[in-house]
Structures are given as structure tokens and as C-alpha cells.
């Protein structure tokens, strides 16, 4: 079975972001970028499926600027066999990403598509669900366990009240939650080998997808900062403050 994995280049999760002075967006100049953490989990899951003999080939896909090739190379170093880079410098909304991925799915015919549950820049949590809709596949979102069977996959999902397991007809879309697995690090020899693995580039035009945004980002602001409070010296003082100052007890 072929597995397709979508990876996104985003700001590193440790970086404290700054909003641009003109409030047009977040400032990404000279900021450390990385693979979206949920996408790392998606790649790891695909690699484990291959190690277990379930996946036969792993294709990593990204949509983004030239620099996003770095994240594809990371995926290749981690175990993907080849990569597809849909190149664009535009802001691509989840719907357009899903449409581009649908074109790739149609061409590649994977048995399983794995995405992250959310990109930590937009915090959208949409693309996997949208891709599933566009391709007419079932969706196992927020997965903490993926169990591929004959023609179906059982996906255990992290839902508000606990866990839910669904069985999906293959091909299907899975989006990863944090506890699905713990991603490995790429080893140096693998990083070297990844440089020689095939990486194909395509444009949205070649894929016949209109990526014009449907929403306009009018303004980006820093949220109201919380004023730092005080340190209390004892439990008694804490209880007193909560009762008589904050009045929450």
C-alpha cells in the first residue's frame, strides 16, 4: 500500500512570535522554521507502517515556497521514498491545500493519506477533513492509534470525552494527534542519502487548481497581555487574596 503524507513548513514551535508593526501579519523574517510537529508524527506513522511491511512506498508532499524543500528533505531523511513539492509563494488556505492534495491523490492513488491534525501557525485543523470530503474518503481525525486491516483501517480518535474508535474503508484520510507516536530524529547518514532521493516539483497551475484565497486577513494583533501578578508568601495569604481581593472563593 502506498502512503501519502502531507507536511507543512511552519515557524518552529519554540519561537515566540512577533506581530509586524503594520499589523498585516506575523513577522517571519529570520525566524527559525521547521516541520509542523503534527506532520512529524504523520511521517513517523508512515515510516512505522513501512517498517511493519504494511506500507510499500511513502510519498511526502508539501505546498509552499522554495524553502519548504527543507521539510521534504527531512521527511525523506526520516524514511519517505520520494517527495512532491507544489511550489507557490502565495498564502494558501486549507481549502486550496486540500484541492492541491486531491490532485496528487488522484495521480498517486495512495491507500492511506496521513496529515497532521493542525498546523501550528494558522491553527486551522481543516485540511485533512477537507481532503477527505473532496476525495470522497472517510476520515479518522485526531488519531492516537492507527490499525490497518484488510481493506479497512481502525482509527482511535482523541475526542472531548475520551477516545473513540472508527473503522474506515480504505483508502482513507488520517490526521494525527500528539500521542499517536513519538517521532524519531533523522540520522546523519540518512540526511545525506535523502539528498539523492527523488523530489518532483509542480505548480498549482499545472495541477489545475485555483488557489486564490477566500478570506482576507484584515489585521493581525498581539492579544492583550496579562499583567503579571504578585507572589504570595504562604497558603494563608493565597487563600486570603482569593477570598478578599479576587473574590473568587
Amino acid at each position, binding site marked *: 500500500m502506498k502512503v501519502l503524507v502531507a507536511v507543512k513548513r511552519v515557524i518552529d514551535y519554540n519561537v515566540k512570535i512577533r506581530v509586524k508593526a503594520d499589523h498585516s501579519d506575523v513577522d517571519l523574517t529570520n525566524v527559525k522554521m521547521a516541520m509542523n510537529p503534527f506532520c512529524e508524527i504523520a511521517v513517523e506513522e508512515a515510516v512505522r507502517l513501512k517498517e511493519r511491511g504494511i506500507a510499500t512506498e511513502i510519498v511526502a508532499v508539501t505546498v509552499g515556497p522554495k524553502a519548504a524543500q527543507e521539510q521534504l528533505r527531512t521527511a525523506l531523511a526520516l524514511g519517505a521514498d520520494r517527495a512532491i513539492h507544489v511550489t507557490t509563494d502565495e498564502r494558501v488556505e*486549507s481549502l486550496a491545500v486540500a484541492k492541491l492534495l486531491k490532485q496528487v491523490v488522484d495521480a498517486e492513488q495512495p491507500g492511506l493519506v496521513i496529515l497532521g491534525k493542525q498546523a501550528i501557525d494558522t491553527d486551522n485543523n481543516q485540511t485533512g*477533513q477537507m481532503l477527505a470530503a473532496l476525495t470522497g474518503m472517510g476520515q479518522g481525525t485526531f488519531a492516537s492509534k492507527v490499525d490497518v486491516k484488510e481493506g479497512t483501517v481502525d482509527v482511535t480518535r482523541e475526542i*472531548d470525552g475520551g477516545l473513540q474508535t472508527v473503522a474506515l474503508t480504505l483508502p482513507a484520510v488520517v490526521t494525527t494527534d500528539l500521542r499517536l507516536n513519538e517521532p524519531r530524529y533523522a540520522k546523519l547518514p540518512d540526511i545525506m542519502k535523502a539528498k539523492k532521493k527523488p523530489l518532483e516539483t509542480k505548480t498549482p497551475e499545472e495541477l489545475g487548481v485555483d488557489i486564490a484565497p477566500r478570506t482576507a486577513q484584515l489585521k493581525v494583533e498581539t*492579544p492583550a497581555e496579562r499583567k503579571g501578578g504578585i507572589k504570595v508568601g504562604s497558603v494563608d495569604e493565597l487563600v486570603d487574596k482569593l477570598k478578599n481581593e479576587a473574590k473568587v472563593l
Partner: protein
Amino acid sequence: MSILVLAEHHDGQLAGATAHVVAAAKAIGGDIDVLVAGENVAAVAESAAKLDGVSRVRVADAAVYAHQLAEPLADLLATFADDYSHVLAAASTTGKNVLPRLAALKDVAALSDILSVESADTFKRPIYAGNAIATVQSADPLKVITVRTTAFDAVGETGSATIEAVDGAIDNSLSAFVDEQLEQSERPELGAARVVISGGRGMGNGENFQLLEGIADKLGAAIGASRAAVDAGFVPNDMQVGQTGKIVAPELYIAVGISGAIQHLAGMKDSKVIVAINKDEEAPIFQVADYGLVGDLFEVLPELESKL
């Protein structure tokens, strides 16, 4: 304008979240319908009909909607989404699962987790784990939106909407429910509790969460956790507060043995009063805490319980 709200319900009861989503719908303005989809949901529909501002409750009661699977629900919503200018749901795991699927079926963008309604087509929403707030305007004819329930005060329950059945069955060959492990708790729901007390890696193990329980009992609090505590297996996943867990905004949030990573802060920094208990006086959690107590939680918690 006419707005459809997808009702959130569990165990045959309307979830509190829906009253907050209806509040967001009221802020947009227009006729408000609520869709209740599920199996044996008559009681849910009755409760939804009482929500202020709702004119009609549409009920799709069939086995295929049990467990709220995304595939049939999105198909159902898509059959009558054209009657509406907006479709809203809570930014719960159900809302987040279903609404983007609907949006793609209707070829429109989805807006996740809105915090405010600026106008019928313009909304604020958090990005980068809430470290920035974007104002976004949708150009689509249909707006598909999930709502951060803590950002809207619930509407009252003095309404009397009409209830009507939706007919036409949807079938689903893509997905099937297998099973569910739901955490049972006598405590209030995390998202709705007036007080939340959360433990982090500093709790050391799952048993030690009992130290929080005594306090939670006294305060009528819900118990939450950091990701590190969930990952370490101290407590189940549904207790995680943060960017990728639950978003809470109680009157009082008590963080115990939690360092205060931005991903955790994203889930609780809109709480009215924040208390942090941590033995490391440099822990970043103190930067957002109204009251910080530097100390060993194993000494502080029993004392706190006895003094409440």
C-alpha cells in the same frame, strides 16, 4: 441572514456549548435554526428549542447519525446548507471534525475557533497558539465557522422554538463506529467549570492527582492537566488543557507543577484569575499568574485543602 447551528450533545443531553454557539449566531444576527442530528435525540431537541433566539429546531433522528460521525453529518448539512448564510458549530472535537468537511463539500473556506463577531462576514480568531489574533473577512456566500465557546456568554433558556423533523436518509459506507471509551466523572465539564485546577509533570504520577481532587471537591472544580502529564500517562487525554487540548476560561484557574509553555498558556490564559503553584520561581507560568506561590506542591496542596 439565516444561520444554522449544529447542536452539540452527549448521552441524549444537549451540551452546554450549544448555548454559547447560539450567542455567536445572535451576534451575527438573523434567523437562527438549530440542527440536532443523532439517534434518540428528542430530549436534546426539546432543550435546544428553549435556547433564546432560536426560531426552529430541525431534528435528524436516525441510527446513521449516532456517534456524530463526520461523513454522514457533513453530507446531511450539505443537503440544506444552501438555505443558510452561516453554519456554526462549537470548536469541539465534533465541530472541528464535521464543519471543515462540510465546507469542502460546499467549496467554501472554513473559519476555525472564532473569538468575536465583527460583522456578518468578519471575525476574530486566534493564530499561532493564541499569540496573535487575526481579523479575517470571508468572501464566500456561505460561512462555515467553529466557535470558541469560552469567548461568548451562553444565551438563556426561555425560548420556545418550533421543532420539525428532517427527512431524507443519508447512508454511510465510508466509516463505522467501533467503540468509545468515555471518561466518567462526577465533576463539572472542563470547558464549563467555574474553577479549574490542573496538574503538570510536577505531580510526579497519576496517584498524586488525588491531591488535586480534595481541593476540586471543595471548590466544585474540574480537573485539567498539561500535555506532559497526559503523555506520561498520569491522566487521560480528555483532561489536556492547551493549544491542542481544551480551551478553558474559568473564573479561577490553578496551575500546579506546570511550567507554563506557550502551548499550555494558549488553553488557559483567558481565565479571570490565575494561581500558579510551582517550586521553580523562574517558571514562566508566574508571568501570567495573578497569584504565584513558590513552593513544593506536596506541602502546599494538603495545606491548601485544609484551609479552604
